[in-house]
């Protein structure tokens, strides 16, 4: 490879260059290592049955179908609850409030504080509000809503940043054309902001998928197939945690589940990404003659 290194005349530069190379390789290795272990260890467990059967023998054998279903249900509930709220907050902050006014300042401040709260605390809050006071019990709905509270600050922050960056110049040029603020927001700002919105969504989704602490005491850990979102359901992270700590001989399937989780993350991220691209193209492009 004829890169910078060979054309650098000074030893100091070459040293620096070598340093950069070693650094980058280390970073890649650190990222790939756990991935490699999960793939190597988990691939033994993967089979068609693993995805289509219920767990048996406390998860040592059988599959993870109900767990996948519960996980998707929990994440869907949390995103369905958090996304509109986060969007409303972002619109409030970027389009409605004065950026330096006390409303915007206190909203930003409380989002920052919320983002720093440990997830266990959200779990306790969810347990007391959704499970007890609102009478949802240990259920997918309660778990999803608690997760929604947890990811709300992240999501709202990401959407605010995305809308802010996208709207800046178009807000003024749109207004100068006599376009209404909602028209510019929906037809210009949101389509332009879609990539940023998508990134925020994926970030929030992965946080939700990876969460265990919150769900332990809100959605419970029944490994049966949930019949509605008011049923208890075990998310995949809890399943992995349970198999690897509480179930002797469950390691094999723990790795299998971890690999399934990675696959799920990949599939969800890629599909969000493609959906966004499609929408982006659809909304900004061609409504030609």
């Amino acid at each position, binding site marked *: 490879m004829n890169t910078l290194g060979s054309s650098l005349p000074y030893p100091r530069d070459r040293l620096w260059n070598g340093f950069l190379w070693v650094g980058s390789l280390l970073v890649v290795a650190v990222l790939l290592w756990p991935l490699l272990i999960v793939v190597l260890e988990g691939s033994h467990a993967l089979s068609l049955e693993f995805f289509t059967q219920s767990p048996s023998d406390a998860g040592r054998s059988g599959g993870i179908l109900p767990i996948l279903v519960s996980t998707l249900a929990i994440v869907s509930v949390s995103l369905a609850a958090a996304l509109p709220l986060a969007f409303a907050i972002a619109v409030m902050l970027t389009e409605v409030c004065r950026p330096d006014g006390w409303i915007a300042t206190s909203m930003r401040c409380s989002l920052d504080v919320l983002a720093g709260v440990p997830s266990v605390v959200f779990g306790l809050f969810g347990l007391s509000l959704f499970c007890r006071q609102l009478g949802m019990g240990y259920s997918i709905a309660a778990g999803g809503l608690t997760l929604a509270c947890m990811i709300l600050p992240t999501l709202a922050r990401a959407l605010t940043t995305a809308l802010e960056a996208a709207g800046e110049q*178009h807000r003024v040029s749109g*207004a*100068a054309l*006599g*376009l209404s603020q909602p028209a510019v927001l929906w*037809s*210009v700002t949101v389509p332009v902001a879609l990539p940023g919105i998508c990134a925020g969504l994926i970030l929030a989704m992965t946080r939700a998928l990876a969460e265990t602490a919150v769900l332990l005491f809100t959605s419970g850990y029944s490994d049966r197939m949930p019949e509605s979102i008011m049923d208890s359901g075990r998310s995949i992270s809890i399943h992995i945690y349970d198999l690897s700590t509480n179930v002797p001989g469950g390691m094999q399937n723990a790795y299998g589940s971890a690999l399934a989780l990675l696959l799920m993350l990949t599939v969800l991220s890629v599909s969000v990404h493609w959906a966004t691209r499609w929408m982006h193209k659809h909304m900004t492009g061609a409504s*030609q003659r």
Partner: protein
Amino acid sequence: MTHSTLLATPPLVARPYAAAQSIADSRPSSGHIEFDDISVRYGNNKVVESVCLKVPRNSVTAMIGPSGCGKSSMLYTVNRLCDLIPGCCVTGSVEFSWLDNEQMRKDAILLRRQVGMLFQRPNPFPFSIWKNLEFALKQHGIRAKADVNERIESALQEVGLWDEVKDRLSASAFSLSGGQQQRLCLARALVLQPAVLLMDEPCSALDPISTQKIEDLILRLSRTRTILLVTHSLGQARRVASQVAMFWKLDGVGRLIECGSALDLFDQPRHDLTKSYLAYA
């Protein structure tokens, strides 16, 4: 447009203020925009004080002066973009003698349909060329296909862009050059058929050839539209404007220090500050 067609039209520098003057003379002075005692504040910071200015209809009035003396703020009072800036407070009034001011005071959208604006940087929407023009029309309730098509084509014709883009109307507006983007933005304002055009240093980000195209357009458009042009180029003001308003920051506040026909102001400036400002160029 290619270089040959550019050269075919006589270069603008060859007809200093004569061109602007002849256009101004050939039409009836059938109205004006009147700025009455305009003051602008941002929070507690007063940036424009007591500006009274009469802008004749269907002509070009150039606003010149150093940066920060409130020229952009003056433009914002015409289409009330200042309403969008938090903390911005405008007193005084801007009236259009040939329009229904009462109704436009109530409805900023109606006002902005009459008053188009071109900014320093070309700022097309991230849409296709076609959709950039169609979007504004649709939002203003103009949806009949024939009407929409006709207006878009004639706006693009008017800015000399039609022949350049007619084969790629579905391409992104960002695929155009900076000068073309600026003309697209002008077309985007023109589809709404405004009576007034505000231009805030429209050529400061453009190369000389694109600048000349815009100046040509300004002259041509001013036959039927009132144009308020902020510019830092005295040459440009000389070439296109029939009236020139000179702003200056006195005691930290922007004021109108001199206003007159381009001929008078450039040849016999009265104010000392104007004299020294013109001497720099």
